[in-house]
């Protein structure tokens, strides 16, 4: 399957994984190649390794998360790290402690890696300036969600052999989506052609400057696409009215058998989850085992996170 060129013993230059924007092509190749080695391990009966034995990983989640947090937790544990997940609801942050103070406190406990999710864009960058360990961004505001984009790339490579030359449509709430931004950077870097499809109210300013084609009509945007990435409508981030109703949104932007018919016959359907069935995606399409790779994304997510933990943790020690 693997068609990404094997890099010549390149080392990742960054100390932290803050975003796809900071990575080079060879960094990405190294992460993907590393992740591939973990796919089989994760499917075997004995999943535990001791690559990160003695290392401490802290998961610092300021936003609720099920899949990303558990994925990072599993990834760390499978590599043998001691994993601690901070429950922010009960922490000092709720008592008014600033992010930097929290970082300094945690830093004093000598972690080797901190995985952070935060509602403010740039929070992982700030954290990385203050701690002595590797910082991995598990999603910050609307800015980036690098491991999600990396697992999406791995899923595509797993199925299609490569990303280069593919036509990828990213559809839905682009405005509030860090997944969209990270995927735009990554898929562009890997040589795909990226289409964005969204209602005008959910398009960020000057998004075309990121190297994408912009559509407001699903059928035009999905035309001859190899990959259709649906995004979740992020109602919790919306201040005020962006759409008339979920019903109208589904009518024009929901992924239905009719709309996907213009894409390539074997087009893959992806979704970072959690899904709003019947809002952005037809429920049968989401479960269509011939097309939907949504569950595979979750599976490979663990492998990608293991690769990231391994590569960035090593970097620091």
């Amino acid at each position: 399957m693997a068609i990404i060129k094997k890099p010549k013993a390149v080392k990742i230059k960054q100390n932290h994984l803050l975003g796809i924007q900071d990575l080079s092509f060879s960094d990405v190749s190294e992460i993907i190649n590393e992740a591939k080695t973990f796919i089989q391990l994760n499917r075997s009966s004995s999943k535990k390794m001791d690559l990160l034995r003695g290392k401490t990983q802290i998961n610092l989640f300021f936003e609720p998360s099920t899949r990303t947090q558990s994925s990072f937790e599993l990834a760390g544990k499978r590599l043998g790290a001691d994993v601690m997940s901070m429950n922010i609801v009960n922490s000092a942050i709720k008592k008014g402690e600033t992010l930097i103070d929290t970082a300094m406190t945690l830093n004093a406990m000598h972690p080797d890696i901190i995985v952070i999710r935060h509602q403010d864009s740039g929070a992982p960058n700030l954290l990385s300036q203050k701690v002595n360990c590797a910082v991995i961004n598990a999603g910050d505001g609307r800015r980036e969600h690098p491991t999600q984009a990396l697992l999406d790339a791995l899923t595509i490579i797993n199925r299609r052999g490569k990303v280069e030359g593919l036509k990828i449509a990213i559809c839905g709430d682009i405005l509030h989506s860090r997944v969209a931004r990270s995927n735009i950077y990554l898929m562009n870097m890997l040589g795909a052609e990226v289409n964005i499809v969204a209602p005008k109210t959910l398009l960020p300013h000057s998004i075309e400057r990121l190297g994408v084609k912009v559509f407001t009509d699903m059928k035009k945007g999905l035309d001859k696409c190899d990959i259709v990435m649906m995004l979740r409508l992020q109602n919790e981030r919306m201040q005020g009215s962006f759409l008339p109703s979920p019903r109208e949104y589904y009518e024009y932007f929901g992924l239905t058998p009719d709309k996907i018919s213009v894409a390539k016959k074997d087009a893959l359907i992806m979704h970072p989850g959690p899904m709003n069935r019947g809002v952005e995606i037809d429920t049968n399409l989401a479960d269509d085992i011939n097309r939907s790779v949504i569950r595979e994304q979750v599976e490979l997510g663990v492998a990608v996170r293991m690769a990231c933990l391994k590569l960035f943790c090593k970097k620091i020690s």
Partner: protein
Amino acid sequence: MKEKYLINARIIDPKNQVDVIGGLIIDENGKIKASGKKITIQNLPSDSEILDLKNQILIPGLVDMRVFVGEPGYEYKENFRTLSDAALSGGVTSVVSMPNTLPVIDNVSMVDFLKRRGRDKSKINIFPAASLTKNTDGKQMTEFGLLKRKGIAAFTDGTKTVQDPQLMSRIMSFASQSESLIMQHAEDNILSKGGLINDGEISTRLGLQGIPSLAEKIIVERDLSFLEEYFCRYHISQVSSEKTVSTIRLAKKAGKIFSAGVSINNLSLNENDIGDFRTFLKLSPPLRTENDRLALIEGVNDGSIDVIVSDHKPQDEESKRLTFAQAATGAAGVETLLPLALELYHNNSIKLDKLIATMTSNPAKILQINKGSLDTGNDADLCILDINKPWVVKQHELKSKSKNTPIEDRKLQGIVTNTFVKGKNVFCRNK
């Protein structure tokens, strides 16, 4: 006080269209007695105090129309003494202080406090502004007449905009009776809600919610429409976008009488300077595109924009060491106002006399105060500068209590060497 003779200076006095090599005499009361090219080394009385300026430039002390003092309530950010030191080091001798304090400057008793603190702790002239509405809540107008009589120079909600159009029209209508100066911070609250930086490519890349330039333009257009019905002394505090400059240009061409300002930050920086979430560049109005910056320069050149302000807003370290969304807005800048503005002269963006006018005679005219010129009989508030001297901005060298400069490590050309207030040499830079 003895008479003082300042000689061998290049005197630039935009109000009187003077740009000559000569001298200036300060009388024993600290007033300007005379100035011009006839005052030279040859015709000085022998017992007078003489200061040879060695061809440095002598201009009126600067009038900065937008400065935040921490008193009362935020003394840990800036107090009158530190503000005064910072201002003098930048050649600023008069400031309009914003009313966004704790409590807000919205009643007569607060004015006495400000005047007393200003007089006792600072060496500069403080022209306090009071709020347009009680507690800057945007609901109930303040006592324009009574406050003005007490010595309030202008009215503004400072960092806030009067959103309610009915109230704004009534404010303009009522304030005209007392000939009060209304200064609007133009930003539509709803359009800018949650916004952190300019709405554009950078906000998309950084994942920060944008503030559209329309939020500014819409308020300016609204207020200029009101101005037709309810004429008053009206000033737009800070313009940040090309769109608003165009609106102002057209309105002025159509004969409307009002004035507008711009922050030196918006003239010298753009949204790209925010870089990797630098919270010191979180400003209001936000830094916009290079195109907007160039339009603002054009606006200064064609007279659409009348004044340049520092928008000096000191913030303590704790307010800035946060994520971009949580960090406080504003930058310290009173002491770098002139040197940073001189960059626009050195790179041929704005002519020197024009540039100086925007920080001296123009604000004085809008405020209707006897400052910002070298008129005979005025207080000798003077700024002497070495226009070519190169230097580098260093946070720790700033005199302001808070060090949140947006131009750390910037190489500038031109520095203030001496500042006079009421004839006294209150600041002298160590060589």
